[in-house]
């Protein structure tokens, strides 16, 4: 019998045998059978074979990369330092907003004596007036001052800050209190057009919050955005326009650009249509300048600038959503936000990618059903929630 080739083999000889090595590596069924039989037919070889198995397991290492315990310890400590720094920064914001609220109280009592000066900076006001994200869609809310809030029922109203009053779709609704900040809150499923006091127009997308002064005083025009807006900024060389988001500041002179900075997405995306912008971001306040058709993307401290087809990124203002090799789960998030309806999906759809365009004027149910023709998914609609399941 051929198995006699192993006659007189010591453990090291088995270790040098290719068939033995292959068996040790893969434990394949065929090899298992073979070696079981070898051991059965040649019991005197068993001690050697068993020793060889033990040698393989203890002496042979594949991809034996490792860190020594002290390196691991150092690395572990650095990690937790970063964690504490991150936590401290979050706590600092909370502290700032508490301090800013006190400042606001103090300021109001002084206002009756002094003239219309905005005592709080824009960001202090933003932090002093946090708005908790409402996951269900509701009415659009316009805070024209700290006391007055106007609820807007329209799905896509036009709001304008004219010299004499604030108008919503042509109707005058309030006087412009020049010393105050306004907040526009657009829930999911709604959109709005906003014209600021300087003539700059914004298209505001679903799930967005915009904070801005009723009148731009001083030597700059600053607004705060959490969500997505497309801006057409009126040129004013004496007063640069600055859009502030959580992670970046965008500075422009006269420009059309799209800012996408939803807080829950933890990323910032800015696309320039015409003109020029300068973006400042990150801990080290690094600056990036964009030229038309460029996109700036910021996430987790890293920045990318790429060339894009601008129309695809601003098509939402015309009610069209483009997907360019987009993960299906990301598309679902965008649709859910735009339509203001909840979509639940299996995690596995994130491996699917899609390209194409969606007509947002069409009912969401129809849009989702359309997707079933291209992807292995099933759609259910229960209790107002859409469920996407992979087949």
């Amino acid at each position, binding site marked *: 019998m051929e198995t006699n080739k192993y006659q007189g083999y010591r453990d090291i000889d088995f270790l040098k045998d*290719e068939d033995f090595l292959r068996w040790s590596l893969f434990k394949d069924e065929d090899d298992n059978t073979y070696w079981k039989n070898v051991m059965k037919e040649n019991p005197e070889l068993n001690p050697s074979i068993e020793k060889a198995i033990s040698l393989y397991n203890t002496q042979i290492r594949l991809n034996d990369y490792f860190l020594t315990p002290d390196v691991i310890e150092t690395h572990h400590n650095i990690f937790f330092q970063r964690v504490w720094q991150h936590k401290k920064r979050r706590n600092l914001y909370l502290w700032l907003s508490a301090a800013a609220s006190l400042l606001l109280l103090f300021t109001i009592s002084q206002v009756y004596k002094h003239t219309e000066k905005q005592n709080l900076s824009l960001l202090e006001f933003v932090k002093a007036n946090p708005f908790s994200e409402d996951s269900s869609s509701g009415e659009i809310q316009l805070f024209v001052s700290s006391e007055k809030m106007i609820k807007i029922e329209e799905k896509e109203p036009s709001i304008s800050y004219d010299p004499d009053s604030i108008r919503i779709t042509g109707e005058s609704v309030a006087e412009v209190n020049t010393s105050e900040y306004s907040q526009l809150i657009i829930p999911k499923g709604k959109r709005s057009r906003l014209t600021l006091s300087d003539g700059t127009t914004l298209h505001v997308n679903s799930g967005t919050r915009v904070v801005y002064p009723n009148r731009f005083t001083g030597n700059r025009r600053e607004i705060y955005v959490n969500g997505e807006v497309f801006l057409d900024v009126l040129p004013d060389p004496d007063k640069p326009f600055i859009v502030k988001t959580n992670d970046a500041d965008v500075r422009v002179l006269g420009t059309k650009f799209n800012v996408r900075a939803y807080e829950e997405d933890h990323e910032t995306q800015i696309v320039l249509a015409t003109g020029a912008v300068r973006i400042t971001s990150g801990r080290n306040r690094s600056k990036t300048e964009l030229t038309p058709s460029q996109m700036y993307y910021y996430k987790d401290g890293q920045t990318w600038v790429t060339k894009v087809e601008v129309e695809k990124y601003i098509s939402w203002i015309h009610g069209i959503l483009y997907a360019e090799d987009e993960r299906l789960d990301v598309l679902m998030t965008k649709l859910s936000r735009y339509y203001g309806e909840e979509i639940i999906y299996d995690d596995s759809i994130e491996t699917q990618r899609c390209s194409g365009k969606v007509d947002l004027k069409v009912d969401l149910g129809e849009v989702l059903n359309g997707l079933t023709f291209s992807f292995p998914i099933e759609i259910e609609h229960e209790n107002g929630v859409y469920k996407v399941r992979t087949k």
Partner: protein
Amino acid sequence: MFIFGALIEDRWFNQNVLFMNVASGKLSIIFAKLQKGDEEAFSFFYRYFINDMYAYGKSLGVEDGAVMDAIQDVFLKIFFNKPQFNSVAHLKFFLLKSLKNKLYDFLKHKPFSSTTDIQDDAFNFSIKTTILDEIIEAEDRAIVQEKVEKLLSSLSPLQKEAVYLRYIQELEYAQLSEIMGKNETSVRKLVSQAINKIRKENTTLPSLILITLLFTGF
């Protein structure tokens, strides 16, 4: 921390293969604490899995600095986002998959990635063989090393990665499929192709098997 310390020491002496020297009972207890957000449990798993992540990162051909940065980024994300895991094995799989994605992001400077994005030649996966000098003598070590390397050299980088993840990191095929960004049939094929390729190098075995089967009636 004393208990954790003792467990870590056991773990240290078995780097290459994840032997559950930590009694699975104790591991489950620590895992349950992790799910509740216990920071000490998080610390434990950081130390427990860092070598597996480091080894995988190096095997993908990425240099030390980038691998270490990526490991920290992955753990930071988990610490603050607190995703839920089904089991310790699931946690390990999640760490390895996230690490690969992070390394790919560094490599390509791309903002998004899912493992289906990663092209087959993005990384150059390699398998390096080490033979300890504790027991086997130098001459024999050289021969064994040569033979193992020869066996593995016939495999493509993808096959090597599949084999590494399956046999050394001990992942399930479903998990392999996700990490490699291919469907389950494809990854099973990768592994079986690898075995067959190695088998082809030897001509002795097939006929032996046939005879063995005939005589023993398996």
